[in-house]
């Protein structure tokens, strides 16, 4: 390993760990892939940390690295995921995700259906970034970001309403 882990790196990572969790959840529906992607993000953040000059906010830079990693990440093939049964499989499965907020879980599910680039745009939008900031991070024009966001919002609203409607039919 090259050098000791910087204290400030650890501090920054722990303050913003939710970013890596959110990005990995949106890009990987499979829990094994998600954990693998999360570890890859941590590794890429550590490798790239020397390039962080502090001019931008750490969270913006972390989003950049995490999204770069997610967009170029190769999922394991189905056959690679198959494994023999072991004692661990007898245990009752834990709830899939870390959030207890049902509405947020619905939002995660809706975002997961978007295309890879639209996922990145909406994640940045949800973090309260301006259109100009989103354009800078993604490398798109501000007008393109703005038009895309209108469409993405419509699509997400539609999906969320559909989910809420079907949920109310099940639990009237």
């Amino acid at each position, binding site marked *: 390993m090259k050098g000791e882990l910087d204290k400030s790196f*650890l501090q920054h990572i722990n303050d913003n760990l*939710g970013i890596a969790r959110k990005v990995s959840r949106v890009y990987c529906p499979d829990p094994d892939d998600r954990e693998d992607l999360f570890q890859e993000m941590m590794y890429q953040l550590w490798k790239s940390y020397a390039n962080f000059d502090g001019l931008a906010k750490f969270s913006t830079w972390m989003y950049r690295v995490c999204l770069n990693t997610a967009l170029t990440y190769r999922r394991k093939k189905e056959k690679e995921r198959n494994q023999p049964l072991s004692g661990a499989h007898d245990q009752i499965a834990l709830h899939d995700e870390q959030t207890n907020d049902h509405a947020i879980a619905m939002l995660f599910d809706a975002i997961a259906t978007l295309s890879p680039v639209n996922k990145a745009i909406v994640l940045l939008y949800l973090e309260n970034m301006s259109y100009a900031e989103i354009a800078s991070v993604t490398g798109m024009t501000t007008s393109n970001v703005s038009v895309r966001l209108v469409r993405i919002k419509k699509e997400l609203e539609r999906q*969320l309403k559909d989910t809420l409607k079907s949920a109310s039919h099940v639990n009237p």
Partner: protein
Amino acid sequence: MSTLEDLKERWNADRSAAPTQSVDKAALEKMFKSRIMKHMKTSMQYFWASFGLQVLVYALLTHVLVRYGADLTTLMFCAGGILLHLPFTIMLMRKFRSMATLKLQHPTNDEDSLQHYVTRQHALLSDFYKFKKRYELLLIPLSGAIGVVLVFKLYVPGPLTQHWTGMLITFLLTIISCLLAIRSENRKSFREPLCELKTVIDEFRQEAP
């Protein structure tokens, strides 16, 4: 307020999206060691496979050269085979090294956009794949032909001109088996990743009307 706007506020307030435990130094170091091992393993797998093949070719040609080098035709074929492989071995190792080190030396820069990063990754992989394809197109038929000629010359009685059909069939079988092995490797390691990256790049470039 719309459903999404409402959720946006909750999204930012939702601390449960972050894990309940923070990561400590030991856990991160363990994670990084395992990632380094994984990356090394992936790179080395390809390196040893291609390097192993080169060593095998050199060993065989040298053996034949030493044993049957007294015959001028055999000597020429062996020497030709070795000389043909040498620049390709050097180029392959250089290209591979530059690809591996570029990946390590240029992680995300502060000013890099997602589009730029994905495009660069695509260019890097595509460049190596182009070289690999050219290398395979030229070298495999040539080394296959040299191998077939040497085998027929050394082990099949009679002059080479009597065995054109046999030589041609053996050559075609060699090429087909090589192509099948290469096709599967190229699909898994190059075509599929390149196609995925291209889809993302196309989506970035797609201007909203």
